[in-house]
């Protein structure tokens, strides 16, 4: 990979949040997972109308909410159908990624 591309990717990692730079092979990649949430939760999770913002929220709270949707202990319209498809490691990576985004 050329230095040029390295630079571009390094810039991107900074733009997208710190975890994408740390995620190695085999780790859950929070940045890549989080993209799937933006069309409802807004760009980088900064909120989308009636759908709550995730950016800058406490990581532990986001992870607890996702686990609660997954095990049925927290009610919701759509999250109880999406959350069970993510592993524990993915939930942690998602929560950590959103927590690092400036709200």
């Amino acid at each position, binding site marked *: 990979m050329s230095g040029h591309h390295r630079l571009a990717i390094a810039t991107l990692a900074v733009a997208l949040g710190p975890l994408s730079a740390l995620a190695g092979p085999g780790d859950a990649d929070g940045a890549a997972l989080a993209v799937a949430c933006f069309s*409802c939760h807004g760009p980088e999770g900064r909120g989308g*109308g009636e759908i709550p913002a995730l950016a800058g929220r406490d990581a532990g709270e986001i992870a607890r909410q996702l686990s609660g949707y997954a095990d049925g202990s927290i009610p919701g319209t759509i999250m109880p*159908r999406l959350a069970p498809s993510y592993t524990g490691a993915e939930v942690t990576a998602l929560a950590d990624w959103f927590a690092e985004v400036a709200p």
Partner: protein
Amino acid sequence: MKMQRRTFVASLAALPLAAPALARGAGPRVTVVGAGYGGASFIRTLRRLAPEVEITVIEQTPRFHSCPFSNGVIGGLWDGDRISFEYDGLASTGTRWASGAAVGFDPATREVTLEGGEVVTGDYVLLSPGISLNFAAIDGYSPEAAEAMPHAWQAGSQTGLLRRQLVEMEDGGTVVVAIPRPPFRCPPGPYERISLIAHYLKAAKPASKIIVLDAQDGFSKQGLFEECWAALYPGLIERIPGAESGEVEAVDPATMRVSTAFDDITADVANVIPPQRAGALALDAGLDGGIGWCPVDPVSFESTLAPGVFIIGDAAIMGEMPKSGFSAAQQGSACAAALAARIAGDDPAPRKLINTCYSLAAPDWGFSVADVYAQTADGIAAIRPGGGTTPLGADADTHAAEARYANSWFDTLTSQLWG
């Protein structure tokens, strides 16, 4: 369509490092055909991930007209402005914008020929051309016939035409909605449309009725739609399924006759949705391999028939993911990430992709199907098959909340793509 050539140069305020890299010849050239749900998402993501890439966008329409939320226009919930978007925001992300239809594509050289004769070459090509309508599958149907019997399955003037016909129809009229065999774009779309037409007729023309001539037996979110129809629109909707010869075989726009194998119905308003295939540019280039939809690698979305050519959205075969705008936008960002990896000399990493199709059966009665899909080398499959719809018997508060979230989703996604 009049050809109007405009070139936008990069502003890229958000990424100061990118501007010098954009100089001509600095990075690979990527040609994008179609700036709809898939193409717009691809362009936004690639711009961020690989700012040195030169992007040329070929788009035939002067404004984007969204099919999502077009059923609300037809039902009179909002007007056509809600689904109409300028391309300027997208074009000003540092792309060369070539307005006009691509009329030819050579997958071997990756040359795209525009209607004005210009030839655009690129190192990589992204096709997100959506669907083409197979008029010939219905005897008597054609683009001209669609001026009397609109399909409104590509949004824009057809959407406005169907709305006008409903407004001009006398009370007591018969609206026929003809639904083709799958696969077609937006599996729940026809039934959302029927619901919102019923919503309009119930208030404005209560003696009218809707006859649904359906080539399908069962349909997406059927229980949820029928629950709403029984509650809100009793007696207004009569549906003839495929097993009872619901499939429309012929139409006659002069007499407004719609014919199945067993019956001829005279309509006051006829919404005839024909069978569909991949966008014409992909078909004509043979990228469907003769089967109507384009086979692609499930992780990179590169055509299995043409290296360097990536195909996303409705035109491609995407395993279990439905043909939706939500899916096309997810595929657009995943494909851009895969191409950025390729350019950097890496392999694309498989992702988890989400699809959600919200439907409005009335302004405050929403429901959804939502699934998470895994990309693997073998295909794209739902992680929890069959788990994804709003439960039957949900209360009014749930349906009202889903309707609000549907509106939020549409405004949020469209502002990210074209804002």
